[in-house]
């Protein structure tokens, strides 16, 4: 009766998962905590402070790269606080570790609202995680701002307190699809996407521009079980003869796709969503391509080689453009207000993202005026966002009915022909601009050239950073 022997094993597995889960939950918790002065009128607001919160992954599989964002957002708030705050109010930013687990996000967000009495939830990260709190925050009328995700789900009349920030994945997909159609016409297109809203929305955008007759193979991956090289997917794309491979992948997945592709001699033109295209974030993962003999010497070189030539669409200046005034000021803020983060990562795609987002919130607070309420803040975002000065190539186009954020970008290529740049983790290919800045919408509207210019860095920022 060997069966008797195995049954407990099944039970144990259940117990294992349960216990591990419970312990993971138990070890999560408060990262930054602060005492909150209760406001007389508006929750989270006093004459000297405004308390806001967020849930982000600081540990766990989604943490790589993303764990840098919230501290970078906070760096901007520290800068603002060091210069008197906004209308005399210092910004207190409480960001908690949800490990990218929606159940944890829901619990921690209730804690932020009920115990910490936050004025607004700002810069919470992730699609499934933010979907888990969207209804709650709207019911409680807590502004749910600048979500770190490009899901199409953030702009809906049902949830007026919610806003996105980065371009919707469909917008980025359309811009890249438009570029593919005009530059790689007739080539065989392969697709690899994460099977969540992220990948699906992005591919939706690609498919609006690229006729289905040109797509030879569609591959996907499950992010919850992503751990090993995607040999099967890349073999399938190779077998289908794909010449251009479009990818909606998180950084780890970009590496786990490029590595086995290179191993089987498959070198298509990669076109990546910007989520998984930042060389300093993806590069360290690619050093697996080195061997025992070459590891120390050639790690960075091998990584650079695989990323070289990859095309993406950016909505703010790449960190490689050292001469850009926004990049210069962002580096200063990072260096001065989060020296640890600066020493570990420098300005990369994630820290830059955090700084731009934090600065957007500072401007929203300014625009809301001295008498800060939740209503006045959302009204300011709806009506004055186009005047916000951000590093974004296109203005934030919030309105009463549209809550996406940036809806544009330019097509760029990571290439050593544009020089290289250094971060604390390596040397990376520079950025070549391939197209003008485009704007479009998540719907069927056309991809159009944007004729405005990137706003200059406000002197209040450049002089004090």
């Amino acid at each position: 009766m060997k069966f008797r022997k195995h049954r407990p094993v099944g039970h144990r597995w259940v117990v294992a998962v349960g216990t591990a889960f419970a312990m993971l939950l138990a070890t999560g918790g408060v990262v930054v905590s602060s005492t909150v002065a209760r406001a007389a009128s508006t929750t989270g607001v006093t004459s000297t402070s405004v308390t806001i919160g967020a849930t982000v992954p600081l540990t766990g599989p989604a943490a790589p790269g993303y764990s840098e964002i919230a501290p970078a957002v906070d760096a901007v708030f520290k800068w603002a606080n060091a210069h008197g705050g906004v209308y005399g109010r210092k910004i207190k930013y409480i960001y908690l570790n949800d490990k990218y687990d929606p159940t944890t996000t829901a619990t921690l967000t209730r804690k932020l609202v009920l115990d910490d009495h936050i004025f607004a939830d700002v810069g919470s990260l992730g699609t499934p995680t933010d979907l888990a709190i969207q209804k709650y925050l709207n019911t409680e009328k807590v502004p749910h701002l600048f979500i770190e995700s490009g899901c199409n789900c953030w702009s809906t009349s049902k949830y007026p307190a919610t806003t996105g920030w980065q371009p919707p994945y469909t917008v980025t997909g359309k811009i890249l699809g438009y570029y593919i159609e005009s530059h790689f016409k007739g080539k065989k297109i392969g697709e690899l996407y994460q099977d969540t809203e992220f990948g699906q929305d992005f591919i939706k955008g690609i498919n609006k521009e690229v006729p289905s007759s040109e797509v030879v193979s569609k591959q996907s991956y499950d992010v919850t079980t992503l751990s090993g090289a995607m040999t099967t997917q890349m073999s399938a794309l190779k077998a289908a003869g794909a010449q251009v491979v479009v990818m909606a992948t998180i950084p780890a997945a970009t590496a786990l796709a490029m590595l086995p592709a290179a191993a089987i001699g498959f070198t298509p033109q990669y076109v990546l969503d910007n989520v998984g295209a930042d060389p300093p974030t993806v590069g360290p993962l690619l050093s697996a391509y080195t061997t025992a003999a070459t590891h120390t010497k050639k790690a960075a070189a091998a990584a650079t080689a695989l990323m070289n030539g990859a095309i993406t669409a950016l909505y703010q200046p790449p960190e490689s453009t050292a001469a850009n005034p926004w990049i210069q000021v962002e580096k200063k803020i990072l260096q001065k207000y989060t020296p640890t983060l600066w020493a570990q990562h420098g300005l990369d795609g994630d820290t830059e993202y955090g700084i731009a987002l934090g600065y957007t919130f500072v401007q929203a607070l300014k625009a809301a005026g001295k008498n800060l309420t939740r209503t006045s803040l959302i009204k300011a975002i709806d009506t004055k966002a186009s005047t916000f000065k951000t590093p974004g190539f296109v203005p934030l186009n919030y309105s009463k009915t549209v809550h996406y954020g940036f809806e544009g970008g330019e097509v760029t290529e990571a290439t050593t022909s544009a020089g290289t740049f250094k971060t604390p983790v390596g040397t990376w290919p520079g950025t070549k601009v391939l197209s003008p800045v485009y704007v479009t919408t998540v719907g069927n509207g056309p991809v159009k050239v944007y004729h405005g210019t990137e706003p200059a860095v406000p002197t209040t920022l450049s002089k004090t950073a």
Partner: protein
Amino acid sequence: MELFVNILLSGVAQGMVFAAVALGLVLISRATGVINFAQGALGMFTTFIAFSLLSSGVGYWAAFVAALAIGFASGAVIERTLIRPLQGKPALNPVIVTIGLLVVLEGVAGSIWGNVARGFPAAFSQKGLVIGTTRVAFSHFDVFIVCAVVVLVLAIVALFQWTDLGLRMRAAAFAPEVSRLLGVRVGRLFTLGWALACAAGSLAGLLVAPLSAFSPYYMDLNLVYGFTAAVLGGLVSPVGALVGGLVTGLAIAFVGGYIGPDLQPIAALALLLLVLMVRPQGLFGTTEVRRV
């Protein structure tokens, strides 16, 4: 055809890694009747130690051997300090301890090395071999994976079958009380079993790291697949672990290639259920009753 060959070959290489994980589970299950859920995490931890050594300029092979040695030693230490005191207690206790160990190891690794995923170098080139005119999904490093695991399994089999020590280990596992009466130092052999198992886990960690997003969590799924392989092989025989690993590797590679990669973990669990329902003793198990 090229796709079929690539799926087949990647399944073989992956299967060997699962076999190494399964081998560790089998050795411990045989010796002390415990399913060691920290098997993967231990391999992860020792591979991170190798990573630190590599980063500080130590040569690849020195770091490789050091990781195996540390795996071996920590297996012995864990048996002595965490598992031995639980002897005679309910069978679930040591299992819970190994789950706790899994959580602790992943947490500690995260706090030391960070939760950042990164790359880990391979012993040999990961560029696929050229067969005819096509570059296939089987590299020099994959050849090394297969050789390393097969050699390890054969060595363990040889140890059990042809040495006095192996005979005593089998005796201690089969009938600890009788063995003890006959003068066999059963405790030491249990310790040795754990040490060997954790060395096998370390090997698995080193072999799979270059094919993974190397972070404190990269062995989690490999443990699930390794467990499937171990049960498939019957949880008692090293050769069973090898065959179980191969079958599991091929099964999930073909499911991933022809049905959908999303279904790979489900396929593994389906395989596990199928084995438990149709042939609960596994492919190589006997039908004797044993308490786990």
